[in-house]
């Protein structure tokens, strides 16, 4: 290497980089502001459905709910309280990212909307903190900045029900139960980062909800230990009904607002969307870095409309878990999912529902369809036909793995998706079917 030339070149690169960073900082403020508005709208819209005292009472009921899958906070508390819970938890995620100087890029947007979505059916102001604290302790232990572990901390709140069920569901002495619940949450959070980095290799990045798989394994271990002491979780399916009309109007407006902002930020065009859909979406595909924040918002809004249309077309009901699924899809609209790689999964799960024993409009089948899009990179990388196969296999798998963690892991589809991706992608590779990304 010719060092003098290299250093000169390096200094130029650094100078250019510095300018770039200055520009990015301004953009970051805009991105943070817009994300805060989306969260504030969510929290604020609670008052459309309930008054302040009802929301406060509902929030209290949500905080002490065992919250194992599937517990709709719209039933446990009320609609207003669950929306308020979603908005507040999303604001907390945004604040944690801001405080740790992390850019508002695809993964963080995905995490913030995923947390908001699951705050409608499993995450609350009590059960997220022990897991986050556990990840924070991990960062101290490894002498790393917490910003490097922010994603496992945010996504890791999938194990919220582990904290809540131990604290309120096992019937232990109330004070000891809460202390023990917090302790296991911290322990799980401390274990998650190295496990997440390890397990991502298992599915080679084709399962977008990587923490879902990791948390599934972690939850499985905890559940096995609990069961060995005679502690088990009841089968839970608590979902609201009859809310299609208000939520159809609500989300048409919400996604419309998102689409409009994206359109304006993308220079009042939809330019670049065709290119965005050429990405397989495999981890790590950050649409915000690659295609811009505006185009990512456009993609997120379009995915929101698509998921809403699917639910309505098959005669499903909007409730906490279903809306949570929609929010997760729009979040990952900034981090791997787009119209072209999502629809084959919907079709695969739909066909599976027709052929198999599950009703296509049941909550479980709808959750499999919405969250089954965790496998969107398979459709993006290998083609729509293979995406449909993944959907078919996923539908069967997801109905079988939940029992392993007893509903302690909220990202059950991510758990299933990890297995499906790990099984299918080596087979598809052996057929030399990977088309690759059009470019990177």
């Amino acid at each position, binding site marked *: 290497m010719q060092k003098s030339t290299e250093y000169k070149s390096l200094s130029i*690169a650094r100078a250019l980089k510095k300018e770039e960073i200055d520009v990015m900082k301004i953009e970051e403020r805009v991105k943070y502001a817009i994300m805060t508005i989306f969260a504030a709208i969510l929290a604020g819209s609670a008052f459309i459905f309930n008054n302040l005292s009802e929301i406060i009472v509902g929030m209290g009921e949500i905080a002490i709910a065992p919250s194992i899958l599937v517990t709709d906070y719209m039933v446990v508390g009320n609609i207003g309280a669950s929306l308020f819970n979603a908005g507040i938890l999303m604001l907390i995620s945004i604040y944690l990212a801001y405080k740790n100087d992390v850019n508002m890029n695809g*993964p963080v947007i995905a995490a913030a909307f995923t947390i908001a979505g699951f705050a409608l059916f499993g995450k609350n102001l009590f059960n997220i903190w022990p897991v986050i604290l556990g990840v924070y302790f991990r960062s101290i232990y490894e002498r790393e900045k917490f*910003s490097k572990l922010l994603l*496992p901390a945010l996504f890791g709140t999938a194990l919220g029900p582990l904290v809540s069920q131990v604290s309120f569901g096992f019937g232990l002495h109330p004070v000891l139960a809460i202390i023990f619940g917090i302790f296991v949450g911290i322990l799980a959070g401390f274990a998650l980062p190295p496990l997440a980095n390890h397990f991502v290799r298992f599915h080679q990045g084709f399962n977008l909800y*990587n923490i879902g798989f990791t948390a599934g394994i972690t939850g499985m271990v905890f559940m096995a230990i609990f069961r060995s002491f005679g502690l088990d979780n009841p089968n839970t399916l608590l979902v609201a009904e009859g809310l299609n009309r208000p939520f159809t109007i609500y989300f048409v407006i919400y996604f419309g607002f998102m689409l409009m902002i994206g359109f304006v930020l993308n220079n009042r065009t939809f330019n670049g969307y065709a290119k965005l859909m050429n990405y397989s979406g495999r981890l790590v595909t950050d649409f915000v870095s690659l295609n811009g924040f505006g185009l990512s918002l456009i993609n997120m809004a379009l995915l929101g409309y698509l998921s809403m249309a699917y639910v309505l077309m098959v005669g499903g009901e909007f409730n906490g878990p279903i809306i949570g699924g929609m929010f997760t899809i729009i979040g990952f609209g900034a981090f791997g999912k787009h119209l072209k790689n999502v629809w084959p999964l919907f079709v695969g799960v739909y066909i599976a529902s027709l052929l198999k024993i599950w009703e296509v409009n049941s909550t479980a089948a709808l959750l499999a369809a919405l969250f089954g899009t965790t496998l969107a990179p398979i459709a993006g990388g290998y083609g729509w036909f293979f995406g449909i196969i993944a959907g078919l296999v996923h539908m069967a798998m997801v109905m079988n793995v939940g029992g392993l963690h007893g509903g302690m892991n909220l990202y059950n589809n991510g758990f299933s998706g990890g297995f499906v991706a790990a099984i299918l992608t080596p087979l598809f590779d052996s057929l030399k079917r990977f088309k690759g990304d059009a470019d990177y």
Partner: protein
Amino acid sequence: MTNERMKAIKIVDELIAYFFAHQLTDLTIDLNYGLSQLEISVQGSCDQKPDDLDQLKEVLNSERQEELEEYYSSLLGESRNYHELNLLGALVDSADISYQNQQLSITVYRKRS
């Protein structure tokens, strides 16, 4: 071995994978694991400028994203079927890429925190 050294190995893996994907097999690799920064340079003879070189330059000079490191870095250099150049771009601070006299040279820089 420390995490940082493992990342250096994986970055080298990924760069070699890029050269191999373009059928470049006669390579010179220079690695400087300095106190303040890691510097890796890979050079090889290449008859034609790779089509995707400008895109590669863009990706490797995109902003470093520390939050991806501990979560996804194990994907780097892991598969013989897929490239992880987006991830590589998130792990390095900047890159110098040149194609001159049928020589392709890629140098990446990663500050050590």
